[in-house]
Protein backbone atom coordinates (compact mmCIF):
# COMPACT_ATOMS: atom_id res chain seq x y z
CA UNK A 1 0.00 0.00 0.00
CA UNK A 2 1.20 3.48 -0.77
CA UNK A 3 1.08 5.83 2.21
CA UNK A 4 3.58 8.30 0.91
CA UNK A 5 4.15 9.74 -2.52
CA UNK A 6 6.01 12.56 -4.13
CA UNK A 7 4.47 14.24 -7.12
CA UNK A 8 6.42 16.47 -9.53
CA UNK A 9 8.52 17.94 -6.73
CA UNK A 10 10.83 20.78 -7.74
CA UNK A 11 13.44 22.65 -5.76
CA UNK A 12 15.29 25.74 -6.82
CA UNK A 13 18.08 27.34 -4.83
CA UNK A 14 19.08 30.86 -5.66
CA UNK A 15 22.59 32.00 -5.00
CA UNK A 16 22.24 35.71 -5.52
CA UNK A 17 21.29 36.23 -9.16
CA UNK A 18 21.91 32.63 -10.19
CA UNK A 19 18.98 30.24 -9.82
CA UNK A 20 19.76 26.59 -9.79
CA UNK A 21 17.17 23.91 -10.16
CA UNK A 22 18.26 20.98 -8.00
CA UNK A 23 15.11 18.88 -8.28
CA UNK A 24 13.49 18.92 -11.69
CA UNK A 25 10.11 17.30 -11.11
CA UNK A 26 10.57 14.13 -9.12
CA UNK A 27 7.87 11.45 -8.87
CA UNK A 28 8.13 8.67 -6.36
CA UNK A 29 5.83 6.55 -4.26
CA UNK A 30 6.81 4.51 -1.23
CA UNK A 31 5.18 1.31 -0.08
CA UNK A 32 4.40 0.21 3.45
CA UNK A 33 6.76 -2.34 4.97
CA UNK A 34 9.36 -1.73 2.29
CA UNK A 35 12.77 -0.15 2.25
CA UNK A 36 13.25 2.13 -0.71
CA UNK A 37 16.89 3.03 -1.28
CA UNK A 38 17.83 6.25 -3.03
CA UNK A 39 21.20 6.17 -4.79
CA UNK A 40 23.04 8.44 -7.16
CA UNK A 41 26.09 10.60 -7.65
CA UNK A 42 27.05 13.15 -5.08
CA UNK A 43 25.15 16.36 -5.69
CA UNK A 44 22.36 14.66 -7.59
CA UNK A 45 19.83 15.91 -5.04
CA UNK A 46 19.20 12.86 -2.84
CA UNK A 47 19.42 14.64 0.50
CA UNK A 48 17.41 17.54 -0.83
CA UNK A 49 14.66 15.18 -1.90
CA UNK A 50 14.70 13.29 1.40
CA UNK A 51 14.54 16.43 3.54
CA UNK A 52 11.69 17.85 1.47
CA UNK A 53 9.83 14.57 1.78
CA UNK A 54 10.42 14.61 5.53
CA UNK A 55 9.02 18.13 5.86
CA UNK A 56 12.36 19.56 6.94
CA UNK A 57 12.43 22.10 4.13
CA UNK A 58 9.80 23.40 1.72
CA UNK A 59 9.59 22.40 -1.91
CA UNK A 60 9.54 25.03 -4.68
CA UNK A 61 6.80 23.15 -6.50
CA UNK A 62 4.90 19.90 -6.64
CA UNK A 63 3.17 17.83 -3.95
CA UNK A 64 4.26 15.66 -1.07
CA UNK A 65 1.34 13.41 -0.22
CA UNK A 66 1.20 11.73 3.15
CA UNK A 67 -1.96 9.81 4.02
CA UNK A 68 -3.55 11.54 1.05
CA UNK A 69 -2.89 15.03 2.35
CA UNK A 70 -0.59 17.47 0.62
CA UNK A 71 2.14 18.52 3.04
CA UNK A 72 3.45 21.32 0.84
CA UNK A 73 0.18 23.18 1.40
CA UNK A 74 0.23 22.79 5.20
CA UNK A 75 1.21 25.36 7.79
CA UNK A 76 4.59 24.92 9.51
CA UNK A 77 2.77 23.89 12.69
CA UNK A 78 0.87 21.14 10.87
CA UNK A 79 4.11 19.89 9.33
CA UNK A 80 5.78 19.94 12.73
CA UNK A 81 2.98 17.82 14.17
CA UNK A 82 3.42 15.25 11.42
CA UNK A 83 7.18 15.21 11.99
CA UNK A 84 6.63 14.74 15.70
CA UNK A 85 3.97 12.04 15.52
CA UNK A 86 4.24 10.24 12.19
CA UNK A 87 7.86 10.50 11.03
CA UNK A 88 11.16 9.19 12.31
CA UNK A 89 14.61 10.39 11.27
CA UNK A 90 18.09 8.93 11.21
CA UNK A 91 20.99 10.89 9.79
CA UNK A 92 24.67 10.38 9.18
CA UNK A 93 25.36 11.53 12.72
CA UNK A 94 23.21 10.44 15.62
CA UNK A 95 22.40 14.01 16.77
CA UNK A 96 21.50 12.92 20.27
CA UNK A 97 20.77 15.51 22.96
CA UNK A 98 24.08 15.74 24.86
CA UNK A 99 22.60 16.25 28.32
CA UNK A 100 20.08 13.41 28.24
CA UNK A 101 20.72 9.77 29.01
CA UNK A 102 19.81 7.10 26.47
CA UNK A 103 16.58 6.48 28.29
CA UNK A 104 15.75 10.18 28.47
CA UNK A 105 16.35 10.67 24.74
CA UNK A 106 13.53 8.22 24.12
CA UNK A 107 11.34 9.70 26.81
CA UNK A 108 11.71 13.12 25.16
CA UNK A 109 10.60 11.64 21.85
CA UNK A 110 7.57 10.06 23.52
CA UNK A 111 6.71 13.45 25.06
CA UNK A 112 7.14 15.26 21.76
CA UNK A 113 4.96 12.80 19.86
CA UNK A 114 2.18 13.37 22.40
CA UNK A 115 1.49 9.65 22.77
CA UNK A 116 0.09 10.27 26.25
CA UNK A 117 1.45 7.10 27.79
CA UNK A 118 1.55 6.58 31.54
CA UNK A 119 4.92 6.58 33.25
CA UNK A 120 5.20 2.80 33.49
CA UNK A 121 3.93 2.33 29.95
CA UNK A 122 6.66 4.73 28.82
CA UNK A 123 9.26 2.75 30.73
CA UNK A 124 8.07 -0.52 29.24
CA UNK A 125 8.08 0.92 25.72
CA UNK A 126 11.58 2.31 26.19
CA UNK A 127 12.86 -1.01 27.50
CA UNK A 128 11.32 -2.84 24.58
CA UNK A 129 12.81 -0.57 21.94
CA UNK A 130 16.22 -0.49 23.61
CA UNK A 131 16.25 -4.27 23.63
CA UNK A 132 15.35 -4.19 19.95
CA UNK A 133 18.40 -2.08 19.11
CA UNK A 134 20.55 -3.93 21.64
CA UNK A 135 21.18 -0.93 23.88
CA UNK A 136 19.18 -1.88 26.98
CA UNK A 137 22.38 -2.30 29.00
CA UNK A 138 23.32 1.37 28.48
CA UNK A 139 20.04 2.98 29.52
CA UNK A 140 21.65 5.42 31.95
CA UNK A 141 24.58 6.38 29.72
CA UNK A 142 25.10 9.85 28.29
CA UNK A 143 25.89 10.14 24.55
CA UNK A 144 29.45 11.27 25.25
CA UNK A 145 30.23 7.82 26.66
CA UNK A 146 28.84 5.87 23.69
CA UNK A 147 30.65 4.68 20.57
CA UNK A 148 29.57 5.88 17.15
CA UNK A 149 27.66 2.69 16.41
CA UNK A 150 25.98 2.74 19.80
CA UNK A 151 24.92 6.34 19.29
CA UNK A 152 23.50 5.46 15.91
CA UNK A 153 21.51 2.60 17.42
CA UNK A 154 20.10 4.96 20.04
CA UNK A 155 19.22 7.39 17.24
CA UNK A 156 17.36 4.59 15.49
CA UNK A 157 15.57 3.72 18.71
CA UNK A 158 14.55 7.38 19.00
CA UNK A 159 13.35 7.36 15.40
CA UNK A 160 10.99 4.43 15.93
CA UNK A 161 9.89 4.60 19.58
CA UNK A 162 6.76 6.59 18.76
CA UNK A 163 5.79 4.05 16.06
CA UNK A 164 6.16 6.36 13.06
CA UNK A 165 4.49 5.64 9.75
CA UNK A 166 7.53 6.71 7.76
CA UNK A 167 11.22 6.42 8.55
CA UNK A 168 13.70 8.69 6.77
CA UNK A 169 17.38 7.81 6.87
CA UNK A 170 20.11 9.81 5.15
CA UNK A 171 23.33 7.80 5.03
CA UNK A 172 22.73 6.24 8.44
CA UNK A 173 25.78 4.04 8.10
CA UNK A 174 28.26 6.55 6.69
CA UNK A 175 30.04 7.10 9.99
CA UNK A 176 30.27 3.40 10.84
CA UNK A 177 32.60 0.54 9.88
CA UNK A 178 31.25 -2.20 7.65
CA UNK A 179 30.38 -4.63 10.48
CA UNK A 180 28.43 -1.95 12.34
CA UNK A 181 26.86 -0.75 9.09
CA UNK A 182 25.47 -4.18 8.46
CA UNK A 183 24.09 -4.39 12.00
CA UNK A 184 22.37 -1.04 11.58
CA UNK A 185 20.91 -2.00 8.20
CA UNK A 186 19.69 -5.32 9.54
CA UNK A 187 18.05 -3.46 12.37
CA UNK A 188 16.35 -1.00 10.02
CA UNK A 189 15.13 -3.87 7.84
CA UNK A 190 13.77 -5.81 10.81
CA UNK A 191 11.95 -2.76 12.12
CA UNK A 192 10.53 -1.93 8.73
CA UNK A 193 9.13 -5.44 8.45
CA UNK A 194 7.92 -6.01 11.99
CA UNK A 195 6.45 -2.53 12.55
CA UNK A 196 5.29 -2.21 8.94
CA UNK A 197 7.05 1.11 8.45
CA UNK A 198 7.53 2.89 5.16
CA UNK A 199 11.26 3.48 4.92
CA UNK A 200 13.21 5.82 2.63
CA UNK A 201 16.95 5.56 2.86
CA UNK A 202 19.78 7.36 1.08
CA UNK A 203 23.04 5.48 0.85
CA UNK A 204 26.31 5.54 -1.01
CA UNK A 205 27.30 2.11 0.12
CA UNK A 206 26.83 -0.61 -2.50
CA UNK A 207 26.83 -3.28 0.19
CA UNK A 208 23.85 -1.76 1.95
CA UNK A 209 21.69 -2.02 -1.14
CA UNK A 210 21.18 -5.72 -0.54
CA UNK A 211 18.93 -4.80 2.36
CA UNK A 212 16.63 -2.68 0.22
CA UNK A 213 13.41 -3.86 -1.39
CA UNK A 214 13.59 -1.25 -4.10
CA UNK A 215 16.42 0.82 -5.47
CA UNK A 216 15.85 4.15 -7.09
CA UNK A 217 18.61 5.95 -8.89
CA UNK A 218 18.78 9.70 -9.08
CA UNK A 219 20.83 11.72 -11.45
CA UNK A 220 20.90 15.45 -11.95
CA UNK A 221 17.74 16.15 -10.01
CA UNK A 222 15.62 13.48 -11.65
CA UNK A 223 14.79 9.82 -11.21
CA UNK A 224 16.87 7.91 -13.71
CA UNK A 225 15.31 4.84 -15.19
Amino acid at each position, binding site marked *: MTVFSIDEVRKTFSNGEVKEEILKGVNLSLREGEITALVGASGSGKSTLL*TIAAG*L*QPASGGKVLFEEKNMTAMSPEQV*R*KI*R*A*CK*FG*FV*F*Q*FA*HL*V*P*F*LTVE*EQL*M*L*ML*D*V*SELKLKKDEQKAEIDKVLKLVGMDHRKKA*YPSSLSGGEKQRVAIA*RAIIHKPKVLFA*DEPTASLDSKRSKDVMLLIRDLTKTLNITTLIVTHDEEMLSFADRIIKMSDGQIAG
Partner: protein
Amino acid sequence: MNIAWKEIKRNKIRFLILGSIIFLVSLLTFIISGLANGLSQDNAALIKDLPNGVFYMDEEAEETYNLSRIDRSIQDEILSKHKEAAALSIQMGFLNDENDKQRSVAFVASTESTLFENVKSGEIVLDRSLEEEGIKVGDTFTNNQYSSKFVVKGFVDQKKYSHAPVAYINLKDFKEIYRVEEMQLIFMPGGDLTLNIPDLQSFSKKDFLNTIPSYSAEQMSLNMIVWFLVVISGMLFAIFFYMMNVQKIGLYGILKAIGVKTSSLFKMMWTQMLFITIIALLLSITFSQVFNMIAPKGMPFSLTATTTGLLSLVFLIIGFIGATLSGIQIKKVEPLQAIQQGEV
Protein backbone atom coordinates in the same frame (compact mmCIF):
# COMPACT_ATOMS: atom_id res chain seq x y z
CA MET B 1 10.13 15.37 31.39
CA ASN B 2 11.81 18.62 32.22
CA ILE B 3 14.71 19.03 29.81
CA ALA B 4 15.49 22.53 31.10
CA TRP B 5 16.33 21.05 34.47
CA LYS B 6 18.23 18.09 32.94
CA GLU B 7 20.47 20.49 31.09
CA ILE B 8 21.26 22.47 34.23
CA LYS B 9 22.05 19.25 36.06
CA ARG B 10 24.37 18.09 33.32
CA ASN B 11 26.08 21.48 32.83
CA LYS B 12 26.38 22.61 36.43
CA ILE B 13 29.54 24.65 35.98
CA ARG B 14 28.18 26.70 33.12
CA PHE B 15 25.01 27.60 34.99
CA LEU B 16 26.93 28.11 38.23
CA ILE B 17 29.09 30.73 36.53
CA LEU B 18 26.04 32.51 35.17
CA GLY B 19 24.33 32.31 38.56
CA SER B 20 27.31 33.64 40.46
CA ILE B 21 27.69 36.59 38.10
CA ILE B 22 24.02 37.47 38.62
CA PHE B 23 24.50 37.01 42.35
CA LEU B 24 27.49 39.33 42.47
CA VAL B 25 25.95 42.03 40.30
CA SER B 26 22.66 41.99 42.18
CA LEU B 27 24.43 41.98 45.56
CA LEU B 28 26.49 44.96 44.46
CA THR B 29 23.33 46.71 43.31
CA PHE B 30 21.58 46.05 46.61
CA ILE B 31 24.56 47.30 48.61
CA ILE B 32 24.96 50.46 46.54
CA SER B 33 21.28 51.22 46.75
CA GLY B 34 21.41 50.58 50.50
CA LEU B 35 24.27 53.01 50.66
CA ALA B 36 22.44 55.58 48.56
CA ASN B 37 19.44 55.32 50.80
CA GLY B 38 21.59 55.38 53.95
CA LEU B 39 23.48 58.43 52.78
CA SER B 40 20.32 60.25 51.83
CA GLN B 41 18.92 59.46 55.26
CA ASP B 42 22.15 60.67 56.84
CA ASN B 43 22.08 63.81 54.77
CA ALA B 44 18.50 64.86 55.11
CA ALA B 45 16.43 62.69 57.43
CA LEU B 46 15.28 65.88 59.16
CA ILE B 47 13.57 66.99 55.94
CA LYS B 48 12.80 63.61 54.36
CA ASP B 49 10.85 62.32 57.33
CA LEU B 50 8.56 65.36 57.43
CA PRO B 51 5.06 64.85 56.08
CA ASN B 52 4.47 66.03 52.52
CA GLY B 53 4.22 69.76 52.33
CA VAL B 54 5.58 72.97 50.96
CA PHE B 55 8.67 74.97 51.97
CA TYR B 56 8.88 78.71 51.53
CA MET B 57 12.02 80.75 51.47
CA ASP B 58 12.87 84.33 50.69
CA GLU B 59 12.83 84.95 46.95
CA GLU B 60 16.06 86.94 47.18
CA ALA B 61 17.90 83.98 48.71
CA GLU B 62 18.18 82.40 45.26
CA GLU B 63 17.37 78.92 46.50
CA THR B 64 20.03 78.97 49.20
CA TYR B 65 18.21 78.48 52.45
CA ASN B 66 20.84 79.97 54.73
CA LEU B 67 20.75 83.24 52.84
CA SER B 68 16.99 83.37 53.29
CA ARG B 69 15.50 86.01 55.61
CA ILE B 70 11.75 85.89 55.81
CA ASP B 71 10.17 89.18 56.71
CA ARG B 72 8.64 89.03 60.18
CA SER B 73 5.31 90.50 59.12
CA ILE B 74 4.89 87.95 56.31
CA GLN B 75 5.77 85.13 58.70
CA ASP B 76 3.26 86.29 61.30
CA GLU B 77 0.58 86.59 58.69
CA ILE B 78 1.13 83.05 57.35
CA LEU B 79 1.44 81.46 60.76
CA SER B 80 -1.72 83.07 61.99
CA LYS B 81 -3.60 81.85 58.92
CA HIS B 82 -2.18 78.32 58.90
CA LYS B 83 -2.03 76.91 62.39
CA GLU B 84 -0.05 73.80 61.44
CA ALA B 85 2.66 75.77 59.63
CA ALA B 86 6.00 76.46 61.31
CA ALA B 87 8.92 78.77 60.68
CA LEU B 88 12.33 77.24 61.10
CA SER B 89 16.03 77.90 60.70
CA ILE B 90 18.85 75.48 60.16
CA GLN B 91 22.51 76.33 60.58
CA MET B 92 25.60 74.14 60.78
CA GLY B 93 27.66 74.75 63.88
CA PHE B 94 29.66 73.29 66.74
CA LEU B 95 29.02 72.14 70.28
CA ASN B 96 31.86 71.87 72.79
CA ASP B 97 31.53 69.28 75.54
CA GLU B 98 32.92 69.53 79.07
CA ASN B 99 36.35 68.36 77.85
CA ASP B 100 36.29 70.99 75.13
CA LYS B 101 35.86 68.38 72.46
CA GLN B 102 34.14 69.86 69.44
CA ARG B 103 31.23 68.17 67.68
CA SER B 104 29.72 69.26 64.44
CA VAL B 105 25.92 69.52 64.57
CA ALA B 106 23.06 71.08 62.63
CA PHE B 107 21.28 73.60 64.89
CA VAL B 108 17.58 73.67 64.25
CA ALA B 109 15.16 76.13 65.81
CA SER B 110 11.52 76.54 65.04
CA THR B 111 8.39 78.30 66.10
CA GLU B 112 5.96 76.25 68.12
CA SER B 113 5.10 73.10 66.13
CA THR B 114 4.43 69.40 66.52
CA LEU B 115 6.80 68.64 63.65
CA PHE B 116 9.90 69.83 65.45
CA GLU B 117 11.16 69.57 68.99
CA ASN B 118 10.33 72.64 70.99
CA VAL B 119 12.90 73.27 73.69
CA LYS B 120 13.31 75.94 76.30
CA SER B 121 16.17 78.39 76.26
CA GLY B 122 19.32 76.76 77.60
CA GLU B 123 18.11 73.29 76.73
CA ILE B 124 19.02 71.07 73.80
CA VAL B 125 17.56 67.92 72.24
CA LEU B 126 19.98 65.82 70.18
CA ASP B 127 19.88 63.12 67.54
CA ARG B 128 20.10 59.57 68.89
CA SER B 129 23.46 58.99 67.21
CA LEU B 130 25.07 61.23 69.82
CA GLU B 131 23.63 59.11 72.61
CA GLU B 132 25.34 56.16 70.99
CA GLU B 133 28.58 58.13 71.24
CA GLY B 134 28.18 58.27 75.01
CA ILE B 135 26.35 61.53 75.62
CA LYS B 136 23.74 61.34 78.36
CA VAL B 137 20.76 63.40 79.43
CA GLY B 138 22.04 66.15 81.74
CA ASP B 139 25.39 66.58 79.97
CA THR B 140 26.24 70.17 79.19
CA PHE B 141 27.60 71.84 76.08
CA THR B 142 28.88 75.26 75.21
CA ASN B 143 29.16 77.22 72.00
CA ASN B 144 31.62 80.01 71.24
CA GLN B 145 28.83 82.43 70.36
CA TYR B 146 26.57 81.46 73.23
CA SER B 147 26.82 83.12 76.61
CA SER B 148 25.28 80.33 78.65
CA LYS B 149 25.30 76.52 78.64
CA PHE B 150 23.09 73.97 76.90
CA VAL B 151 21.77 71.11 79.01
CA VAL B 152 20.86 67.90 77.16
CA LYS B 153 17.13 67.26 77.65
CA GLY B 154 16.71 64.17 75.49
CA PHE B 155 17.27 62.40 72.22
CA VAL B 156 15.24 61.90 69.06
CA ASP B 157 15.52 59.20 66.40
CA GLN B 158 16.72 59.72 62.85
CA LYS B 159 17.23 63.44 62.84
CA LYS B 160 20.17 64.13 60.58
CA TYR B 161 21.01 67.03 58.36
CA SER B 162 23.94 67.43 56.00
CA HIS B 163 25.60 64.33 57.49
CA ALA B 164 25.54 65.87 60.98
CA PRO B 165 23.27 65.09 63.94
CA VAL B 166 20.55 67.65 64.53
CA ALA B 167 20.60 69.73 67.71
CA TYR B 168 17.24 71.36 68.49
CA ILE B 169 17.61 74.63 70.37
CA ASN B 170 15.30 77.43 71.34
CA LEU B 171 14.69 80.25 68.87
CA LYS B 172 16.07 82.82 71.29
CA ASP B 173 19.34 80.90 71.63
CA PHE B 174 19.53 80.44 67.86
CA LYS B 175 19.17 84.18 67.36
CA GLU B 176 21.91 84.82 69.88
CA ILE B 177 24.37 82.43 68.24
CA TYR B 178 23.76 83.51 64.66
CA ARG B 179 22.78 87.13 65.32
CA VAL B 180 19.74 87.06 63.08
CA GLU B 181 16.21 88.15 63.74
CA GLU B 182 14.46 86.57 60.76
CA MET B 183 13.70 82.91 60.12
CA GLN B 184 14.97 81.12 57.02
CA LEU B 185 12.06 78.86 56.14
CA ILE B 186 8.38 78.28 56.57
CA PHE B 187 7.08 74.75 56.28
CA MET B 188 3.42 74.14 55.57
CA PRO B 189 2.46 70.49 55.92
CA GLY B 190 0.07 69.36 53.19
CA GLY B 191 0.43 72.84 51.68
CA ASP B 192 -0.49 73.83 48.19
CA LEU B 193 2.45 74.41 45.82
CA THR B 194 0.40 76.77 43.69
CA LEU B 195 -0.33 79.02 46.62
CA ASN B 196 1.67 82.16 45.86
CA ILE B 197 2.91 84.31 48.67
CA PRO B 198 4.49 87.63 47.63
CA ASP B 199 8.29 87.77 48.08
CA LEU B 200 8.46 84.05 48.92
CA GLN B 201 9.45 81.13 46.71
CA SER B 202 7.75 77.76 47.22
CA PHE B 203 9.41 74.35 47.06
CA SER B 204 8.06 70.84 47.23
CA LYS B 205 9.86 68.61 49.71
CA LYS B 206 11.78 66.98 46.88
CA ASP B 207 12.74 70.31 45.33
CA PHE B 208 13.87 71.57 48.66
CA LEU B 209 16.04 68.48 49.23
CA ASN B 210 17.67 69.21 45.90
CA THR B 211 18.64 72.71 47.04
CA ILE B 212 20.93 71.08 49.59
CA PRO B 213 24.09 71.16 47.50
CA SER B 214 25.63 67.82 48.54
CA TYR B 215 22.31 65.99 48.52
CA SER B 216 21.46 66.08 44.84
CA ALA B 217 25.03 65.40 43.70
CA GLU B 218 25.38 62.45 46.04
CA GLN B 219 22.03 60.89 45.20
CA MET B 220 22.43 61.42 41.50
CA SER B 221 25.77 59.66 41.28
CA LEU B 222 24.67 56.75 43.48
CA ASN B 223 21.41 56.26 41.65
CA MET B 224 23.29 56.39 38.40
CA ILE B 225 25.52 53.56 39.60
CA VAL B 226 22.47 51.53 40.63
CA TRP B 227 20.76 51.89 37.26
CA PHE B 228 24.02 51.35 35.47
CA LEU B 229 24.40 48.05 37.32
CA VAL B 230 20.85 47.08 36.45
CA VAL B 231 21.51 47.79 32.78
CA ILE B 232 24.81 45.91 32.91
CA SER B 233 23.14 42.89 34.42
CA GLY B 234 20.51 42.98 31.71
CA MET B 235 23.26 42.99 29.12
CA LEU B 236 25.07 40.20 30.94
CA PHE B 237 21.93 38.10 30.76
CA ALA B 238 21.55 38.80 27.07
CA ILE B 239 25.19 38.08 26.29
CA PHE B 240 25.37 34.94 28.39
CA PHE B 241 22.20 33.46 27.01
CA TYR B 242 23.26 34.52 23.53
CA MET B 243 26.53 32.63 23.87
CA MET B 244 24.78 29.60 25.30
CA ASN B 245 22.22 29.71 22.52
CA VAL B 246 24.86 30.01 19.83
CA GLN B 247 26.51 26.91 21.22
CA LYS B 248 23.18 25.17 21.17
CA ILE B 249 22.08 26.08 17.62
CA GLY B 250 22.73 22.50 16.51
CA LEU B 251 20.80 21.11 19.43
CA TYR B 252 17.85 23.43 18.78
CA GLY B 253 17.87 22.36 15.14
CA ILE B 254 17.75 18.70 16.07
CA LEU B 255 15.01 19.24 18.63
CA LYS B 256 13.01 21.14 16.03
CA ALA B 257 13.59 18.37 13.48
CA ILE B 258 12.15 15.72 15.75
CA GLY B 259 9.15 17.96 16.29
CA VAL B 260 9.78 19.97 19.48
CA LYS B 261 7.78 23.21 19.38
CA THR B 262 9.67 26.50 19.22
CA SER B 263 7.59 27.67 22.16
CA SER B 264 8.85 24.71 24.19
CA LEU B 265 12.41 25.78 23.45
CA PHE B 266 11.62 29.28 24.71
CA LYS B 267 9.98 27.83 27.80
CA MET B 268 13.11 25.78 28.39
CA MET B 269 15.24 28.91 28.24
CA TRP B 270 12.88 30.92 30.46
CA THR B 271 12.74 28.16 33.03
CA GLN B 272 16.51 28.09 33.21
CA MET B 273 16.74 31.86 33.38
CA LEU B 274 14.12 32.08 36.15
CA PHE B 275 15.66 29.24 38.11
CA ILE B 276 19.15 30.72 38.02
CA THR B 277 18.01 34.29 38.67
CA ILE B 278 15.69 33.46 41.54
CA ILE B 279 18.36 31.45 43.35
CA ALA B 280 20.96 34.17 42.76
CA LEU B 281 18.54 36.86 43.96
CA LEU B 282 17.53 34.91 47.07
CA LEU B 283 21.19 34.56 47.94
CA SER B 284 22.00 38.22 47.39
CA ILE B 285 18.88 39.32 49.29
CA THR B 286 20.02 37.18 52.22
CA PHE B 287 23.56 38.51 52.05
CA SER B 288 22.50 42.15 51.78
CA GLN B 289 20.03 41.82 54.66
CA VAL B 290 22.73 40.23 56.79
CA PHE B 291 24.99 43.10 55.81
CA ASN B 292 22.19 45.50 56.75
CA MET B 293 22.12 43.99 60.22
CA ILE B 294 25.84 43.74 60.86
CA ALA B 295 26.92 46.96 59.13
CA PRO B 296 28.84 49.12 61.59
CA LYS B 297 26.65 51.70 63.36
CA GLY B 298 28.46 54.67 61.85
CA MET B 299 28.04 53.37 58.32
CA PRO B 300 25.14 55.04 56.56
CA PHE B 301 23.44 51.94 55.18
CA SER B 302 19.73 51.36 55.01
CA LEU B 303 18.14 48.78 52.77
CA THR B 304 14.40 48.39 53.08
CA ALA B 305 12.44 45.31 52.03
CA THR B 306 10.53 47.43 49.53
CA THR B 307 13.70 48.56 47.77
CA THR B 308 15.06 45.01 47.70
CA GLY B 309 11.81 43.63 46.37
CA LEU B 310 11.55 46.32 43.73
CA LEU B 311 15.12 45.86 42.54
CA SER B 312 14.66 42.07 42.47
CA LEU B 313 11.62 42.51 40.29
CA VAL B 314 13.58 44.79 37.96
CA PHE B 315 16.30 42.14 37.78
CA LEU B 316 13.81 39.44 36.89
CA ILE B 317 12.19 41.58 34.22
CA ILE B 318 15.48 42.65 32.73
CA GLY B 319 16.79 39.08 32.81
CA PHE B 320 13.67 37.94 31.05
CA ILE B 321 14.05 40.61 28.39
CA GLY B 322 17.76 39.88 27.95
CA ALA B 323 17.22 36.15 27.61
CA THR B 324 14.28 36.59 25.27
CA LEU B 325 16.11 39.02 22.99
CA SER B 326 19.04 36.66 22.75
CA GLY B 327 16.58 33.83 22.19
CA ILE B 328 15.16 35.34 19.02
CA GLN B 329 17.82 33.32 17.19
CA ILE B 330 16.09 30.15 18.44
CA LYS B 331 13.14 31.12 16.32
CA LYS B 332 15.38 31.44 13.29
CA VAL B 333 17.11 28.07 13.63
CA GLU B 334 16.26 25.71 10.77
CA PRO B 335 16.21 22.01 11.61
CA LEU B 336 18.31 21.35 8.50
CA GLN B 337 21.13 23.57 9.67
CA ALA B 338 21.99 21.14 12.43
CA ILE B 339 21.72 18.07 10.28
CA GLN B 340 24.00 19.50 7.63
CA GLN B 341 26.50 20.74 10.18
CA GLY B 342 27.25 17.22 11.36
CA GLU B 343 27.97 16.08 14.88
CA VAL B 344 26.65 18.17 17.77
